[in-house]
């Protein structure tokens, strides 16, 4: 065990302080020190993306950082995604719900955190571009199809206002 350090990290607008070992991963700080278990750990080597959170607005893999490195930064996790929306889901969460973009739900918070910042651009992307853009997160349940639909729906909604959810057998909104 090495010497403990005192860190304070802002997560979702709250400051969390703890005495921690320098080797403590940021993902473990978020989950076990701050108690925000919506962030999941899938591989702890930066491949699966399940632990993705936003640091100063940009997605980062919280398993690839030490908690001490996040001192002085502002983090956002899935729990705060619909903050200020009066209990309703964020449009991306709502699109995942309507398009069946999740099954077991384990990878979902990471996808949401990764995708949210790209939504403004994604409205103009074709399906192929969306697939490339989300290829940094792994999902083992959905085969990705409905995640792609969710991104299309959320991006278009946020740009154009309300549109209908896709028909269940529509392979792609972009092709429709």
């Amino acid at each position, binding site marked *: 065990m090495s010497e403990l350090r005192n860190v304070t990290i802002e997560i979702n607008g709250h400051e969390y302080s703890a005495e921690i070992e320098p080797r403590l991963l940021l993902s473990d700080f978020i*989950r076990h020190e701050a108690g925000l278990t919506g962030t999941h750990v899938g591989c702890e080597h930066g491949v699966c993306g*399940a632990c993705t959170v936003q640091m100063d607005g940009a997605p980062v893999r919280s398993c690839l950082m030490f908690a001490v490195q996040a001192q002085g930064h502002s983090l956002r996790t*899935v729990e705060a995604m619909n903050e200020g929306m009066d209990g309703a889901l964020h449009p991306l969460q709502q699109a995942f719900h309507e398009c069946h973009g999740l099954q077991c739900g384990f990878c979902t918070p990471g996808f*949401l955190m990764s995708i949210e910042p790209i939504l403004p651009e994604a409205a103009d992307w074709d399906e192929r571009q969306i697939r490339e853009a989300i290829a940094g997160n792994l*999902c083992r349940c959905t085969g*990705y199809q409905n995640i792609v639909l969710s991104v299309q729906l959320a991006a278009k909604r946020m740009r154009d206002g309300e549109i209908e959810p896709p028909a269940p057998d529509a392979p792609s909104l972009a092709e429709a």
Partner: protein
Amino acid sequence: MSRAPADTAPPPRAMGARILRREDQRLLRGGGRYVSDVTLPGLLHGAFVRSTLAHARIIELDLSRARAVPGVVAAFGIEDLRGLVRPMRAISRAPGYRPCATPVLADGKVRMVGEPIALIVAESRYLAEDGAAAVGVKLEPLTPLLTMDEALADGAPVIHDEAPQNLFNSFEQTIGDLEATFAAADEVIDLEIEQQRYGAVAMEGRVAVASYSAAEDRLTAWLSTQVPHIARTGLAKHLSMPENRVRVIAPDVGGGFGPKCVLYQEDLAVCGAAKLVGRPVKWASDRIEDLQTTIHGREQTNRLRAAASSDGRVLAVQADLRASNGAYAVWPYTAGLDSGQASENVTGPYDIRCYERRVRAVVTNKAPMGPYRGVGRVLAAFSIERVMDVLADRLGIDPLEIRRRNLVREFPYTTATGLRFESGDYLRMVDTLAEAMDWERVREENAALRASGVIRGIGVAFAVEQSAYGAKAMGSRQMEMTFGYDTASVRFEPDGRVRVAVGLHNHGQGHETTIAQIASEELGVPVGDIDVVWGDTAVVPYGLGTWASRSTVACGGATILAAQELREKIVALAADMLEARPDDLELVDGAVAMRGSRSQRVPIAAVARRALHEPHLLPEGMEPGLEVTRRFMPPDPGSFAAALHGAHVELVPDTGHVRVLSYVVVEDCGTVVNPMIVDGQVHGGVAQGIGGALMEHLVYDEQGSLVTTTLMDYLVPTAAEIPPIRVLHQESPSPFVPGGFKGMGEGGAVNAPVAIVAAVNDALGAAGNGANHTPLTPEWVLAALKNMNRVEA
């Protein structure tokens, strides 16, 4: 979307509707509760010391330095747990099966890399790993047996004394006159089919938390399991505790796909540790542990012979199947799963009356194989579909036409191995796929494109899916316990809301929604008023969990039976309240009403209140309460869904990559409860199948170390590798299942590797002597392209 005014619209039907999932709300908000989220006062954390050798004798285990590491509370080897935790021994009394023991921690010998040797328990996972690093283990290497040929060779060392010749299992069966059929055949096809080892790789690894109260002698275990009650039975048995003092909670589970059906050594060790230290203990596998030790799948070969007539009918098949089952047999399923299920299904959806199987489950120094989505059936489909493509190529018949000539046409149909396909229309599925893929035109286009150097191919795979095994089918395996039923307990609360408690487990399949749809259909209560609970042995009746595509059939069936019985009581009580005859009443829209009357009705909530809070007003002799528990035994040997997959691929000449251009699935799972969820299951299965066809491979080096221990080495498909998948439904309800359901959770993963291989072989113009193996790696494709160019030149 325009909607009809509410007063004229018929009440929306729950069955068959695209109803959005109830479980999404918590999962999307970060409110899912997985086992690794469980925290308890005084919780300790475990880390395992694991074998670095595939086969070795343990000369020395020194835990003293680990015990001295700051923060370490305890360290356990086999001697510390021997009196507390019995070894697991998966039993089958079927002829030819040899049960072998799995100790909770390695006992004198290790048989695979990753086998747990010691458990360190500390104040944090970090400190537990410090302790694990301080453990001294001396191993004396033995010869590792990594291939089936090595394990079966004369004079090979024996991995388990209980399994001479390194065979868990060996049996043969002949149905029909093989010799005469082969002698008279116009065509004989010889193939050696080989599938690599790959696996489920759920995004959540295995996790266990155990808490023991010595004062009460009660154990509570949170496990990331698909089978809470089977796990409870296993914990009670191996910890020698009364089963009514053990509780298993399996909350949200981050993907199952089969391997989480098994009771693992780590589950028992964590429970044992919690008993010994008197504090709760958690262990969460890291990804390396998960890839090394969570059940693998698929590694099988099939030496295959088929006899056919010149008009394209397959008359007889002979299969010699071998599965590399790894070092241990999984509890309670045994090591007979892969090879057994493959061998039952080799004749596929085809009318082939003459069949011989030789089946061997081989002990090797690798991780155990066990349940993984579509156990064994991938090899079966691979085998018979390759026969069809080779025969089509030889006779110059279109691949769809050769299948038409062989498909089962009349239902019910009982196969040579005794599988009963209860209903279906397989020929129509072929027509539907041909139309959806524009089969003729694409084949012509592919041929035309070849001149310009574009190499494309199209291929199909047809397979039936034995879902929801019946009790006799399971009983024939003569395991320690026979599965083959499941349970639903349906009850009204006093406010008229409904609670359905089921024996299944929900880890992505959307059962909270579909079971509510099924109950809603029977009870006339809105889906939103029905809560479905599962996953806690203290809360739900004994059930057998979720695997083998059984839940909608077994628990859906039980839900219908319970709801129908409940309905009778509701109607009887409402008849008394309305002073009407029960026959004149119906349940609609949350009320019991006189047929054809708008005014004579009583809300179900009032009926529930009468049953639970106004017992003094009940009819003479009626028992208070509205609650029924029923169990349903699916038909034997199961309920058979069917699926036909078509893949269109392009080979990239510079890189050897296989690009999947389009993918179509025609599937028939009987009555569809929720098409959105069925499609989602198909998509996910297909993605795993494409992974298995092209990239997923658990690779061992020559010493028996797993090389693919990270997700950088073990390649799970990303969104970029998976094409859009079109799913078309055909509904042939099962006449033997209430509701007409057939299970369909696995099929996507079964057909997909086979369809991809068929398409690649077509692209190479080599259906006749194409690939009989997976994965089709870029290296292999490049070599095949080179070979093709040489032949064409």
